[in-house]
């Protein structure tokens, strides 16, 4: 059934695209005119594309972190999810999603053109924008797989991947980045999110939270007494490698979000990104050290990612000391978040909600606090972005950030809840208890992750 639907959908999409393509009256598909108009575009394209490649590479990072933090019996499943969300997400985003973000605005709510990159979209600028938005959308999509790991049916995940890239992510992204209503809030400069603490990470994190809640905890996560139990990941080296890859990729994510190499502020963004990750990671390490007396690598890795998420929104509007402070708070938040969710009996196997959800929101607020008034919104000119600690406009900006934060939580969590509930009713979202015990690799994919190694599966 699902197969047939998928396949037909896939073909239908194509037909539409070809039809649409037939009208194509391409404005500048070779880029010659664009370059002539602005020779500086060459370096901008190089910058944006290279940064986009780095963001795409974050898919590898997520795949490694999530697999490493889960059990060997679900590795194939996690890898397949991490590949297929990019695959299905790309097709969905191409067909519809991009048009919703960047198409002609319709009432501040939704974009409504550029579907299938057809017609006028055959243009170097549009393709560049598409590529950039695509790798961002795919990042949001892939975050969720961590929160729902080790128990979500694969076919439900396929549908989920399409829906987030078709609709959930693009709509919210349109509000903030597609000149939608949030960007026009009458406070400060409107809601601001430089590289997507909210648009990408909080969306991913809160959809993930909804998924984790609908699914319920993994078998064995909470003891008969209700106490949370640790379920250690199968490969710390894989998780650590994944975190390094993510950190590396984030240098595309944040500095690349200038969408121009002519804003030399990119050096400041790179430094802020590093400093915030560092201080968050150290804070998380020290907090767990205080609690258990051991140097907990898992939490230090989560901490680094938390810092990266938190600095994503403010990275272009602050200087290094603020990045360090934001990181310290991020470290507290991620550690606290992990324990807090466990206390609520919510099972988030890799810490995705704490890292991306809570810290995504923190990043939005941090803009309203720490933005220091030296930099505009993707511009070096006034009006400058100011937070609470700097000048009079701060209160307004903080208000805009707060509203955006509330909206992103409501939108992502709400859509996520509806999506997973509907999926549950239609397909069932959770694998059989017996299959969960055996591991999803064999049941869903037929392929164990490490067939030659002796593994204690439990």
């Amino acid at each position, binding site marked *: 059934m699902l197969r047939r639907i998928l396949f037909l959908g896939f073909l239908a999409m194509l037909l539409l695209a070809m039809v649409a393509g037939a009208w194509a009256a391409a404005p500048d598909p070779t880029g010659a005119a664009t370059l002539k108009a602005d020779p500086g575009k060459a370096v901008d394209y190089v910058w944006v594309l290279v940064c986009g490649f780095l963001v795409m590479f974050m898919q590898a990072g997520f795949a490694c972190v999530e697999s490493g933090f889960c059990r060997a019996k679900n590795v194939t499943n996690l890898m397949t999810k991490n590949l297929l969300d990019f695959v299905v997400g790309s097709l969905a985003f191409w067909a519809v999603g991009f048009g919703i973000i960047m198409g002609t605005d319709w009432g501040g709510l939704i974009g409504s053109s550029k579907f299938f990159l057809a017609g006028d979209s055959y243009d170097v600028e549009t393709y560049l924008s598409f590529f950039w938005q695509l790798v961002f959308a795919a990042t949001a999509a892939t975050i969720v797989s961590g929160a729902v790991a080790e128990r979500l049916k694969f076919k439900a995940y396929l549908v989920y991947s399409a829906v987030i890239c078709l609709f959930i992510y693009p709509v919210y992204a349109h509000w903030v980045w597609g000149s939608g209503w949030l960007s026009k809030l009458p406070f400060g400069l409107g809601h601001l999110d430089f590289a997507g603490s909210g648009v990408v990470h909080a969306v991913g994190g809160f959809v993930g939270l909804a998924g984790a809640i609908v699914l319920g905890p993994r078998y064995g996560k909470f003891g008969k007494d209700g106490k949370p139990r640790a379920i250690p990941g199968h490969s710390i080296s894989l998780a650590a490698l994944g975190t390094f890859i993510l950190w590396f990729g984030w240098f595309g994510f944040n500095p690349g979000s200038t969408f121009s190499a002519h804003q030399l502020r990119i050096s400041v963004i790179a430094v802020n990104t590093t400093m915030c990750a560092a201080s968050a990671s150290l804070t998380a390490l020290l907090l767990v050290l205080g609690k258990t007396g051991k140097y907990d690598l898992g939490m230090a890795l989560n901490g680094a990612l938390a810092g990266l998420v938190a600095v994503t929104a403010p990275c272009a509007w602050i200087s290094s000391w603020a990045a360090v402070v934001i990181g310290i708070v991020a470290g507290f938040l991620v550690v606290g978040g992990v324990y807090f969710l466990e206390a609520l009996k919510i099972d988030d196997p890799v810490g995705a909600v704490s890292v991306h959800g809570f810290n995504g929101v923190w990043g939005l607020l941090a803009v309203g606090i720490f933005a220091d008034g030296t930099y505009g919104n993707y511009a070096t000119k006034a009006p400058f972005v100011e937070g609470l600690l700097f000048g009079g406009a701060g209160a307004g900006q903080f208000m805009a950030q707060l509203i955006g934060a509330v909206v992103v939580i409501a939108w992502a969590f709400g859509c996520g809840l509806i999506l997973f509930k509907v999926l549950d009713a239609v397909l069932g979202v959770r694998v059989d208890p017996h299959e969960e*015990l*055996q591991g999803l690799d*064999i049941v869903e*994919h*037929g*392929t*164990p992750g490490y*067939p030659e190694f*002796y*593994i*204690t*599966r*439990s």
Partner: protein
Amino acid sequence: MKEIRAIVRLEKVRDILDALEDSGHPGVSVERIEGHGRQTGLVEQFRGREFKVDLLPKARLNIVCADEEVDKLVNTIVDNAKTGAIGDGKIFVYPVENALRIRTGEVGQEAI
């Protein structure tokens, strides 16, 4: 002295060990083995090609105990290992001639 060797499902080990803890907490050794009996294996696939795996992963618990403990321990294991489906496993009992605790040098019953 006897040795009980119980071949059980991997996912039951935790429960069995917990139950054993309540019936006297004997010393136990656990091994990871693969085997088949009535249960005939499963189909896996790799890059589009299916294949049959006829050895399935199991755990084996070994407990050396006094003769009179055998029944109680076997029952505990059975109660906690049983699902009723094929592949539940088997228990074998063997004679043991002697035992020695390396740390203290105690032998026989004392050492178990």
